[in-house]
């Protein structure tokens, strides 16, 4: 039973779904605003909750349709046993009900058809066997070809003819709709005619009529004749020789009746319905087993009945009674009465042996067609198929635990120990579910990723730490999806957010397991129920009893309402993000589809000329560089009007872009080269030259940056850019070496690993401290120092500054630290960070109170003790 099953219209359900979603979002937004939760946190949680609500409410809407598709496909294959299970009562539910009924009817019709064919073939075999027996004996001269034997063969042929006629008649009657053409018929005359016909067909027997000449019935004459012949023939066959068959008929207020009585063996009460079934009668007497079935059909078509009734005690035998109403509609020449055929009579069970039909007997009519994908499967198609039997609940539970950990420890805590713990936990949860977890590449990526999150704990510099986290996420995702190409890397990154959609059905199934039996679900239920009970009763008693409340306070960290809301939001967000990563690891998208090989260019010049042109441009550029380097600064100033420092600064960005583009050119050209020795030589020469030139460009760019840093001082950003450019140089070198050796396919992964190592290296040199050190080196060389810039550095730089600058300058450079980075006094253990704890050690040796901008007296203007010191350092020794 699902939540919305009671709704009788799908519109109501959709309305309820929209309403509930809107209410949820509105409540969440209000709650978030009241608790001061930022929008970027509220929005994803609201989306996730809405999706959850949809999953909960909409599941029952679509499930019957899917089930119907499946059952219909099975029916197309000839299996009619499938039924749609649904508890919903809307239009879809009703459709499912009708569908089930249809499936049942079809199954019945199919079974009847099979029974009929088996029975008919059986009934045809016996006269055929007899006829063949007679004819073969005649042909072989076993019996003489005299009249009795020929008549015997003829009689068998006659039996066959009668059987075929009856079958045709029956199939015509059962075709569904039969037109009746009523007319005024004198009953006695019709019965007399029929008796004549029966007698002429070879039945010897007397008939005794008790029918008034004036009895006129309104019936379809042809049909009634058919009926009468069948029942009269049946009676004549069963009547003992010498005893007449009594036929009586009379009018009733609404119609008329007719009885046929014979003195034969009669019909046992138990058999009175069976004999009207096809082949339900004993055929030994010479009938076809179909006559009574036909007769009853005609009676039912007229809206009447035909049945055996109890004979009078003094007149044993069979008493067959026909009751027909007058057909009411007066016949007009153009009009005919259409009567829908009643339910066809069922086939009598075969006289012996097991039933011919059975589950093993059916033959598939059509070969199985693969089920078309539904839902998310159709959205993501072959890019992201879902394998059956994915582990569910334990993954969700692991991710939920990570979410709880995040909510409890990460919220209100500066980046430090707890962040690393949460990230490692999330990584663990995702890695342990990963499909490729045993592949060396995935293991290496996971190891790199776990190293890359460490700066969060070791450095106070947020920028570097975040760079590390992004790199870690990227490397990890590429690892779990087993990507190999740059396109694959990109798809792996895109797959993470998409995973929150792709994984929804899986998530729904995992949660549905909680409602079923089994050990893990039971544990989950117990934990959830216990926590709710603990929370509700704890809160109730805490508000009721002061002593109890103080105990609670001692146990539970102080939680204001707003804090709690924020913690829950953070927990939910981390849970969702972790779950998305875990799903991606569990069921990786196909980021490396089978790409068709690129067609090589037909002519060599098509790729060679552009590459050589690029080579030439690079060469020209380097000549200009050489002039600038080997000429003096004046030449540059004279020619360009720029100072040398400006000149070098201007080019750095463009050179970096040029390096990136060169990598692209090499990649594109290498794909388009024909697989011929001469082409390979040309490729190695032209692209090798390009790489060498690019390396010189990289060197030149680094040289420019170095000059610039010497002129304007070092910053963390400049160091980072240096590392990036250096990494590009390494990649170009790798392209030359690895590509030259013919292992081009490994390049993307090598570039990835070297990039990750470069980020690690950047973090390892502790850039803020390094930059501070280099700036102090510069100060020691030329006497100027930008203390304002030092102030903007993170706590990482504090030990270097405190050690190498005079105490007053150091105190001024570090004076904002106690208010900013080092102000987190709560949750010290959770927020532990190596950079900050070293900074605290460094500050303890300095007089920090002396550098705070404080007013000496309330009326005096504020005096900044650092102002003069900073100015003095900035001016340098000359000033």
């Amino acid at each position: 039973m699902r939540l919305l099953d009671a709704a009788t219209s799908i519109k109501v359900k959709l309305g309820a779904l929209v309403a509930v979603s809107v209410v949820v979002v509105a409540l969440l937004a209000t709650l978030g605003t009241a608790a001061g939760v930022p929008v970027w946190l509220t929005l994803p949680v609201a989306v996730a909750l809405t999706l959850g609500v949809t999953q909960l409410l909409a599941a029952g809407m679509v499930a019957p349709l899917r089930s119907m598709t499946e059952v219909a496909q099975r029916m197309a294959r000839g299996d009619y046993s499938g039924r749609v299970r649904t508890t919903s009562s809307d239009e879809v539910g009703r459709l499912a009900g009708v569908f089930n009924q249809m499936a049942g009817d079809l199954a019945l019709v199919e079974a009847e058809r099979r029974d009929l064919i088996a029975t008919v073939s059986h009934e045809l075999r016996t006269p055929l066997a007899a006829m063949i027996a007679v004819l073969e004996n005649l042909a072989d001269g076993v019996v003489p070809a005299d009249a009795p034997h020929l008549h015997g063969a003829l009689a068998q042929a006659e039996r066959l003819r009668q059987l075929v006629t009856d079958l045709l008649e029956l199939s015509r009657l059962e075709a569904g709709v039969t037109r009746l053409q009523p007319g005024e018929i004198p009953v006695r005359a019709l019965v007399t005619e029929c008796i004549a016909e029966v007698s002429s067909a070879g039945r010897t027997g007397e008939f005794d009529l008790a029918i008034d000449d004036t009895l006129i019935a309104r019936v379809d004459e042809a049909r009634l004749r058919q009926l009468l012949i069948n029942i009269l023939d049946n009676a004549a066959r069963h009547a003992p020789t010498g005893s007449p068959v009594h036929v009586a008929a009379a009018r009733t207020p609404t119609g008329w009746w007719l009885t046929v009585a014979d003195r034969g063996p009669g019909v046992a009460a138990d058999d009175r319905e069976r004999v009207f079934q096809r082949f339900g009668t004993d055929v030994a007497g010479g009938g076809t087993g179909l006559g009574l079935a036909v007769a009853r059909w005609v009676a039912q078509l007229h809206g009447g009945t035909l049945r055996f009734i109890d004979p009078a005690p003094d007149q044993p035998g069979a008493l067959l009674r026909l009751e027909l109403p007058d057909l009411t509609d007066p016949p007009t020449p153009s009009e005919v009465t259409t009567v829908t055929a009643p339910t066809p009579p069922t086939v009598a069970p075969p006289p012996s042996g097991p039933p011919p039909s059975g589950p093993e007997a059916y033959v598939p009519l059509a070969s199985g067609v693969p089920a078309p994908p539904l839902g998310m499967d159709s959205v993501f198609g072959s890019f992201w198929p879902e394998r059956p039997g994915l582990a569910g609940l334990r993954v969700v539970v692991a991710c939920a635990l990570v979410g709880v950990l995040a909510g409890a420890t990460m919220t209100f805590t500066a980046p430090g120990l707890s962040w690393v713990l949460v990230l490692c936990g999330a990584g663990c949860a995702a890695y342990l579910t990963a499909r490729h977890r045993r592949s060396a590449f995935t293991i290496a990526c996971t190891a790199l990723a776990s190293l890359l999150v460490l700066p969060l704990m070791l450095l106070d510099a947020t920028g570097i730490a975040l760079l590390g986290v992004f790199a870690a996420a990227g490397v990890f995702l590429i690892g779990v999806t087993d990507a190999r190409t740059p396109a694959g890397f990109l798809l792996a990154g895109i797959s993470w957010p998409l995973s929150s959609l792709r994984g929804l059905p899986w998530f729904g199934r995992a949660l549905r397991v909680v409602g079923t039996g089994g050990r893990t679900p039971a544990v989950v239920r117990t934990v959830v129920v216990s926590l709710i009970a603990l929370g509700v009763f704890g809160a109730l008693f805490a508000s009721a009893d002061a002593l109890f409340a103080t105990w609670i306070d001692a146990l539970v960290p102080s939680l204001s309402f707003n804090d709690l809301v924020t913690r829950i939001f953070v927990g939910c967000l981390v849970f969702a993000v972790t779950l998305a990563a875990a799903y991606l690891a569990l069921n990786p998208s196909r980021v490396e589809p089978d790409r068709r090989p690129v067609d090589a260019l037909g002519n060599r010049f098509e790729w060679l000329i552009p590459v050589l042109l690029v080579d030439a441009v690079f060469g020209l550029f380097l000549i200009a560089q050489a002039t600038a380097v080997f000429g003096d600064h004046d030449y540059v100033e004279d020619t360009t009007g720029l100072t040398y420092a400006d000149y070098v600064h201007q080019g750095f960005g463009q050179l970096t872009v040029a390096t990136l583009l060169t990598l692209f050119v090499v990649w594109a050209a290498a794909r388009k080269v024909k697989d011929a020795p001469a082409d390979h030589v040309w490729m190695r020469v032209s692209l090798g030259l390009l790489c060498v030139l690019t390396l010189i460009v990289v060197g030149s760019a680094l040289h420019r940056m170095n000059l610039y840093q010497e002129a304007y001082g070092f910053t963390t950003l400049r160091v980072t850019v240096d590392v990036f450019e250096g990494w590009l140089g390494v990649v170009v070198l790798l392209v030359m070496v690895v590509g030259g050796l013919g292992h081009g396919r490994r390049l993307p992964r090598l570039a990835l690993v070297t990039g990750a190592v470069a980020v690690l290296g950047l973090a390892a040199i502790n850039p803020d401290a390094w930059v501070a050190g280099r700036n102090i080196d510069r100060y020691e060389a030329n006497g100027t120092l930008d203390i304002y810039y030092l102030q903007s550095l993170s706590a990482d730089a504090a030990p270097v500054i405190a050690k190498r600058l005079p105490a007053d300058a150091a105190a001024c450079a570090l004076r904002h630290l106690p208010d900013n980075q080092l102000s987190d006094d709560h949750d010290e253990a959770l927020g532990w960070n190596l950079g900050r704890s070293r900074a605290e050690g460094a500050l303890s040796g300095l007089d920090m109170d002396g550098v705070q901008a404080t007013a000496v007296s309330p009326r005096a203007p504020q005096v900044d003790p650092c102002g003069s010191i900073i100015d003095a350092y900035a001016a340098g020794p000359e000033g």
Partner: protein
Amino acid sequence: MSGQRVLVVEDDRVINDQLTERLRAEGYLVTQAFDGPSAVALATETGPAVVLLDVMLPGFDGHEVCRRIQAERPVPVLMLTARDDEADILVGLGVGADDYLTKPFRMREVVARIAALLRRVDRAAELATSTDRSPLVLGVMCVDPGRRRTTIGDAEVHLTPTEFDLLVCLAREPGQVLTRERLLAEVWGWGEAALNGVATRTVDSHVKALRQKVGADWIRTVHGVGYALEVPTS
């Protein structure tokens, strides 16, 4: 061959008469029966060499007649059935029928099958008196042509005469694939003339029945060729 008695049990008078005429013309002595009870009574009374038996009979059906006749005295039975149903045929073979024919059938085929059945009885009698009567032991299975008994482990397996002959034939050359044609010739005594689709289906049906009794893993099917007896590995 001539002079042997055949009991024809068939409720359709025309068919019964024509069978009788034909068999008399072939030189058999024929007794006619038209229902189950009289068939059993006549079988006891006349002791036919072979019984021609329709499945659908008034009184009780052909299977029951077959069971009762066989319980009294092993006699070859040729079943006539109007139903070409594998299950139906297996039931017939299960109650001790040796062969079956589906309606409509050819008189000549009936005669040929009856002759083959009688020939086989002679051969069995011959075998029973011949020297090669030592029990055949294959793993846990023991087939004793002398006493016409089969055991697997300690359990005795009850086989119809045809099934037993089939098993002996297979067991004399364990592991060898015997073609359907050879089995037909050795077990049923059919010559080349009788070979057709119906005949090979006879072999298949009997092998299927035999498999049900001794266990499916004893007999290996070689598709398109025939069958071989294999001692199961486990």
